[in-house]
């Protein structure tokens, strides 16, 4: 269902990196509940665009406006609205899985109990192990943890399926569906569009 309370407007966005123009004249508008798949060869600017939308880097032209509505969410998680998952996992290797998830949850005001979340991620056995000892796939699951909460209204995922095994990809698929059903927006850069394809989603080829 389209939830028009939140929207992401890209008007004539241009991006350059190291003096070279990557993207020019990109205009796009997404409503709540919509998914956009970002495709294109390596170095075509997928990551730069996601990072520009997340606010890490300014656009060389045009404007990006994300007007996030209040989070209509039963758990009352106000919290920050943007979730960005890049190639890095964003975890402290010396802390355990539980400590990392607890940290991010309290940072983003997510009130979901940690052990329940760890169980859903299928990491119950590794909960007290330090992240350093986990496999790449397991680290990826820990990094995904805070996507389970509906407080982030805008998802910016940069090739989230890498390193994930089949159950992991299915878990992410379920969370993506509930995120979209809950009226969130998602932009996903991926090389495996077929797995993430949803009816009515936008295809954005750079």
């Amino acid at each position, binding site marked *: 269902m389209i939830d028009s309370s939140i929207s992401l407007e890209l008007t004539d966005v*241009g991006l350059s990196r190291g003096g070279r123009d990557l*993207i*020019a004249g*990109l205009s*796009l508008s997404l409503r709540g509940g919509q998914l956009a798949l970002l495709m294109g060869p390596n170095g075509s600017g997928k990551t730069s665009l996601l990072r520009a939308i997340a606010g890490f880097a300014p656009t060389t032209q045009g404007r990006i406006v994300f007007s996030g509505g209040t989070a209509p969410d039963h758990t009352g998680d106000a919290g920050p609205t943007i979730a960005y998952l890049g190639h890095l996992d964003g975890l402290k290797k010396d802390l355990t899985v539980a400590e990392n998830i607890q940290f991010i949850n309290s940072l983003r005001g997510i009130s979901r109990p940690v052990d329940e979340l760890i169980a859903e991620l299928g990491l119950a056995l590794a909960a007290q192990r330090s992240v350093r000892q986990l496999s790449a796939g397991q680290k990826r699951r820990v990094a995904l943890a805070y996507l389970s909460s509906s407080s982030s209204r805008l998802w910016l995922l940069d090739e989230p399926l890498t390193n994930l095994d089949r159950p992991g990809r299915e878990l992410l698929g379920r969370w993506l569906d509930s995120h979209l059903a809950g009226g969130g927006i998602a932009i996903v850069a991926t090389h495996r569009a077929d797995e993430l394809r949803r009816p009515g989603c*936008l*295809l*954005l080829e*750079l």
Partner: protein
Amino acid sequence: MSEFLAMGGHGSYVWTAYGITLAILLWNLWSAGAMLRRNLRRAARETAADEPARRPKVSQLEGE
């Protein structure tokens, strides 16, 4: 003329100081111009306009 050069015994100090300052002035005069010439040459080489950024293609999948 020679006592002018001798500078009352301080000649070596005064002339070294002035010599160094002159050297710095000359280096600056030269290097400012050289920097501009170098950048202009580099700009001339890059006159072939960079390949224009591809305009992204936005399409919508069928279905609701």
